[in-house]
């Protein structure tokens, strides 16, 4: 029988190891796996690489991991949100490595990893600092940058509803990076607002359960 349900957040994040690369879904506060991030802070793993669109804000979530010096490297498109004080502090002190990736390239590199592709050519960033040192190519007068896939050891995903097969459905713009990240990690962990033993409607599934390794209920919204 397929049953990916896990009883509590601590058990869900227990497999995460020191030095792991972790994708964190969400954009701003929408679709952030807040429960799993709290559990990861308690879990204590360090030397982490965090792959996420933003670099946290305030005192919770990714920010709390930065504050407690658990993060070695951040790969993101936009680390400078209002209130991302802990990122800025660590960055200015030279305590973390930063890799800036254009937002669409970030999504596409993650997708390539999940889809088993070896990389792709994108026009994004051609002729800019973010293409420095990268392979480029001109096709029919358009310049492209070669970008490699970006996989991770773990993905922390936030969804609205899920079932025991790991199928997920999202609420409005909380979808964002969550579905694509679920495909690209060796081990994807989903927190869902409503977890059911009954299956989701096959038509309404956005993330098929094959991409999800474990699923845990966390009813609180951001």
């Amino acid at each position: 029988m397929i049953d990916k349900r896990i009883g509590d957040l601590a058990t869900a994040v227990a497999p995460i190891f020191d030095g792991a690369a972790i994708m964190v879904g969400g954009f701003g506060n929408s679709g952030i796996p807040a429960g799993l991030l709290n559990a990861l802070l308690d879990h204590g793993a360090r030397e982490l690489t965090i792959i996420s669109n933003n670099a946290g804000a305030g005192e919770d979530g990714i920010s709390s991991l930065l504050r407690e010096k658990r993060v070695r490297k951040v790969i993101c498109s936009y680390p400078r949100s209002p209130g991302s004080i802990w990122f800025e502090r660590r960055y200015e002190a030279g305590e973390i490595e930063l890799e800036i990736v254009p937002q669409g390239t970030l999504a596409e590199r993650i997708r390539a990893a999940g889809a088993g592709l070896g990389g792709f050519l994108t026009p994004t960033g051609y002729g800019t600092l973010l293409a420095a040192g990268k392979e480029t190519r001109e096709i029919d007068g358009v310049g492209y940058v070669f970008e490699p896939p970006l996989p991770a050891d773990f993905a922390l995903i936030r969804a609205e509803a899920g079932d025991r097969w790991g199928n997920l459905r999202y609420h409005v713009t909380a979808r964002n990076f969550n579905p694509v990240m679920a495909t690209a990690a060796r081990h994807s962990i989903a927190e869902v607002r409503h977890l059911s033993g009954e299956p989701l409607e096959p038509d309404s599934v956005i993330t098929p359960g094959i991409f999800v390794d474990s699923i845990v209920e966390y009813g609180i919204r951001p």
Partner: protein
Amino acid sequence: MKPLDENAMAARLAQDIPDGAYVNLGIGLPNKVAHFVPEGREVMYHTENGLLGVGPAPATGEEDPELIDASKKFVTMVPGAALFDHPLAFSMMRGNHLSIAVLGAYQVAENGDLANWATLEQSFPPAVGGAMDLVAGVPQIFVLMRHTARDGSPKLLKRCSYPLTGAGVVTRVYTDLCVLEVTPEGFRLVDLAPGNRLEEVQSVTEARILT
């Protein structure tokens, strides 16, 4: 000189957004454009975090904490809206499906180069977001910004000194003093804000304004 205020700047740009357009509005001033699109035009606003059909801000107390735009502000959805994930949101941009993107800028050069993501300050972390994806794939890039920097220095330049967001990508510039089109020859005047003269505007512009 008689600079327009921010609302008037946004209203001027909104005149040039046609009925049926698919438009991405950048963070800050560009976001105001949605309030000024003339009656009778149906414009679909795109936000890169996964919504086509962004509606106005919700009434207080009616906010859905997970329904936000790229500025992380609470929004609503208009009839005909669609939700999707990040890869599809960026396929819309990169794949030439949107009509217009309205962006802010630090600098615009007469060859259409745009600098709007990083300054030369080393301690300040760079943050690119979706800007490079927009300029890579959206056919019309409108820049909406003050004509000069806060210290009075020009932002409309012969060449950008800040790191580029994209090379040769800007099609129009809307400032508080004038509207310019980027042509193979350089900036060409479309119109002046009411009560301004070209010589005065040229005096605060590094690049030559053609007429």
